[in-house]
């Protein structure tokens, strides 16, 4: 962390503290933001092919709204292909550690217009502020930039990252709704859905609500069994194959 970033994060904390103090000082005032999701649990079952989550919320004064959905951190590997003797093969690999496995933004307007650069930097909003940059020890300058751009491009293409500005719809003066889509290969884990109320590029209130994505039922049991009881799972797979092969033989003989 550079001294500048340090200062920023320090001032962010002070700002947060001030906000909290203001709210404590005005107990009469109701919560500025109310938020709820159509579901706090996304269950990946046998029929899962992606899901839509509906978000409803209200603000009690005019302003812009920004919704950020962030998935659990994960490690990603990027491969770069190059032509070697006429054949395209991976010649370089870069590992990105602890970056969000899912990141979606929706806003009442384009992100750059409704949130000031400082606000975005302080609160870690937007693809420039979620730690996609490589440490200088791994790659520097233009090379690092290329890796980062390609990572972002691939994550956007895969649906892990989504940038859908101006997707928030107001139903009347205070009530708003938005929808975000979880792809079929959505990473499992604990998500956070943050709703920001902004005015003139500054955050005046924020609210975060949890969202859990997990495998449920038979699918989850098979996955857990495969990963924790690999030996037994392997034997089971072999037995199933042997039995079904034998049954196939019987069917053949009769037919």
């Amino acid at each position, binding site marked *: 962390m550079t001294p500048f970033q340090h200062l920023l994060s320090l001032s962010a904390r002070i700002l947060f503290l001030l906000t909290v103090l203001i709210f404590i000082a005005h107990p009469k005032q109701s919560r500025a933001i109310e938020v709820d999701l159509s579901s706090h649990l996304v269950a990946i079952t046998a029929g899962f092919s992606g899901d839509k989550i509906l978000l409803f919320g209200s603000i009690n004064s005019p302003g812009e709204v920004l919704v950020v959905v962030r998935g659990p951190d994960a490690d990603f*590997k990027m491969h770069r*292909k190059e032509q070697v003797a006429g054949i*395209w093969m991976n010649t370089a690999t870069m590992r990105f550690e602890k970056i969000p*496995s899912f990141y979606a933004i929706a806003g009442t307007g384009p992100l750059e217009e409704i949130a000031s650069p400082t606000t975005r930097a302080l609160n870690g909003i937007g693809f420039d502020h979620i730690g996609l940059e490589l440490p200088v020890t791994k790659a520097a300058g233009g090379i690092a930039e290329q890796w980062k751009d390609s*990572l972002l491009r*691939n994550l956007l293409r895969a649906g892990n990252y989504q940038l859908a500005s101006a997707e928030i719809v107001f139903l009347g003066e205070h009530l708003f709704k938005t929808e975000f889509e979880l792809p079929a*290969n959505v990473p499992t884990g604990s998500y956070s859905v943050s709703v920001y109320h902004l005015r003139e590029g500054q955050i005046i209130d924020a609210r975060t609500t949890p969202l859990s994505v997990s495998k449920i039922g038979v699918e989850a049991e098979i996955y857990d069994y495969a990963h924790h009881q690999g030996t037994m*799972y392997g034997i089971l797979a072999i037995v199933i194959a042997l039995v079904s*092969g034998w049954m196939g033989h019987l069917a053949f003989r009769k037919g």
Partner: protein
Amino acid sequence: MQIYLPIAEISVDIILLLAMGGGVGFLSGLFGVGGGFLMTPILILVGVPPAVAVATQANNVIASSVSGVFAHWKRGNVDFLMGWILLAGGFIGSTVGVGIFTLLKNLGQIDLVINLCYVIFLGTIGLLMMLEGIKAVSHRRKTGGARRGKLHEHNWFHGLPLKMRFRKSRLYISALLPLGIGFFVGILSAIMGVGGGFILVPAMIYMLGMPTAMVIGTSLFQIIFVAANVTFLQAMQNQTVDIVLALLLLVGSVLGAQFGTRIGAKMQGDWLRLLLGVLVVMVCGKLFLDLLVTPADFYSLEMVR
């Protein structure tokens, strides 16, 4: 109707999976081959991660080989002594192969190596099969007679030590030979997700000089165990065997194979060989093109847990 595959972690149309199993099963029944060489590339094409496709297909090979071996066993067409020796080599080979697979996966080169193995080994066999088929078909047109089988030849490898007598196959050859062939095919079957019949069968006929009648039953016998070893090791080391996917493919392939076998029985062997050769060359050609064509994005992504 979509189904979520728990290990592959993707959602695939259940009808598509059944159709794939049925189609490949039909062809494998028609040509009397395992079909792994078709299924693995198709699975990868549908979006199943290559590691999962290869390991799950190994699991499938067990089932199709078991259902095939019974008939040959009853006719006495399994040389068990030869089978066990091939198997010993196959066990070591497939264990080494799964190790290589894990290593290549970590290096990010597994997709390339799978593709290259297909193009080189399967492509060569397919090309040979196609040429031989063309020759046989045109030959028969000219003379109207049956083609004469290849004679048993003596090569340098018949001079290797550790000679053994194989009564069933009427052979007196070095045990190192089947051991080596089993080892090599074991490595390939672990990396490519195939039974290895397409290499094993020609090797047994041309290198070992086994009677053709013995070859299919004996190779199926040893493939069962090698595939079981691959399945077990992949499940244990890489957690890449998807039981749900394997079962769905199985249902289709058992049914498809029944139709294939019936139609195959009505067709001439030379034509079948020619068609199979064309099919194999097409699959390999597609894989080879994939290696040559400039990718849309030079960068690719992989999530690490």
